[in-house]
């Protein structure tokens, strides 16, 4: 009975210790995921967002990207290589057409083919409402490459995978 008592006290303490370790010393996967969470947070827009928050978010979005980021999409019009400033401007322009926007990422598959490079395959879901009231719902599989520069993981390539080919 005493053993069970010690077990009941000891096991939660060990679990809490392990969780605390991973929380305070995140591994590289956690750091990569954090970049996606920040992108999601800064791209998303609530209906009551003020101009100051909007400008701050636009500025922040640029800091997540490498000096040049390559975008590959099935439609050729968007594909190309963009600078941080161009991405910030483009994101700001897209956000201005929407009254509400929510970007979420699911199903992360993170690989580290080289020491300072990571390849991430994931699902991105983009929901919102345009300023005219039209519902927007887009889901895509994305293949992203991030580079570690000055201890920060920055997006260097984003490719939209064509799941359904018309």
């Amino acid at each position, binding site marked *: 009975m005493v053993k*069970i008592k010690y077990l009941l006290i000891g096991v939660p303490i060990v679990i809490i210790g392990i969780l605390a370790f991973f929380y305070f010393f995140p591994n590289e996967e956690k750091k990569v995921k954090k970049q996606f969470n920040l992108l999601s947070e800064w791209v998303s827009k609530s209906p009551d967002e003020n101009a100051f928050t909007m400008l701050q978010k636009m500025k922040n979005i640029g800091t997540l990207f490498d000096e040049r980021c390559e975008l590959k999409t099935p439609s050729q019009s968007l594909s190309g290589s963009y600078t941080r400033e161009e991405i910030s401007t483009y994101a700001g322009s897209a956000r201005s057409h929407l009254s509400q926007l929510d970007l979420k990422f*699911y*199903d*992360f*598959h993170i690989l580290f083919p080289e020491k300072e490079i990571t390849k991430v*395959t*994931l*699902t991105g*879901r983009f929901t919102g409402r345009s300023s005219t009231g039209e519902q927007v*719902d887009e*889901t*895509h*599989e*994305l293949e992203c490459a991030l580079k570690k520069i000055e201890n920060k993981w920055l997006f260097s390539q984003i490719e939209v*995978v064509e*799941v*359904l*080919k*018309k």
Partner: protein
Amino acid sequence: MRGKAPSGQQTGKETTDSSLRPEYHVVSRIMMVQGGVGEHSERDFVSDFYRTYPRGDRGESSDRMAVHNKIRQFFFPSFTPKFLIRVCLVALFAYLFFGYLCIPFTIQGISMEPTYPNGGINFCWRLRYFFSEPKRYDVVTVRFAGNKVMLLKRVVAQEDELVEFRDGKLFIDGKEMEEPYVRLPCDWNLPPRRVEKDCVYVVGDNRSMPIENHHFGQTSKNRIMGVPLW
């Protein structure tokens, strides 16, 4: 009669367990009346006793006790190592079953209406294509990077077939197909295209929207996760 417990029962220690055993609860009430605490008369507690224990049951209190204990054990089980192991096994089974074999999902969107309305709940049965291939008219779930977000579509053509839409009608290899599940008007036109090897062509049942706004097309068989359970 006064102060006496029903036959086969003890009045000492057991009275403290009154909440657990209803037959002892009566004993406790009798003792309270004796002490003058309760408002019941002797006639009241005697009649209570006979109401609680109908004629045939008075000598079978141990059987009733066993049943009550079983019921209590079922709803409020004892926190024993055996019980913990059982809970862990059930949790593990549920995690594997609902996480990998029979994945619950909610339908968001109108592309499969009226067959699968927006907001419906279903399960993706993953073993359906374990030993077989998707066939025409099967409703399937198509994955993106994982199983958190999937597409629900109907297979209309298989590999090496020629798909075409003419004025909303589906043509496979130049032959018009019967599609009873398409109930909403459709005016799509799509030039013929051949389905590649190891692929299927999937479309939603609701084709009332413009063709540009509907997600459909050829997808790899590897992306098919399973079928909705109903």
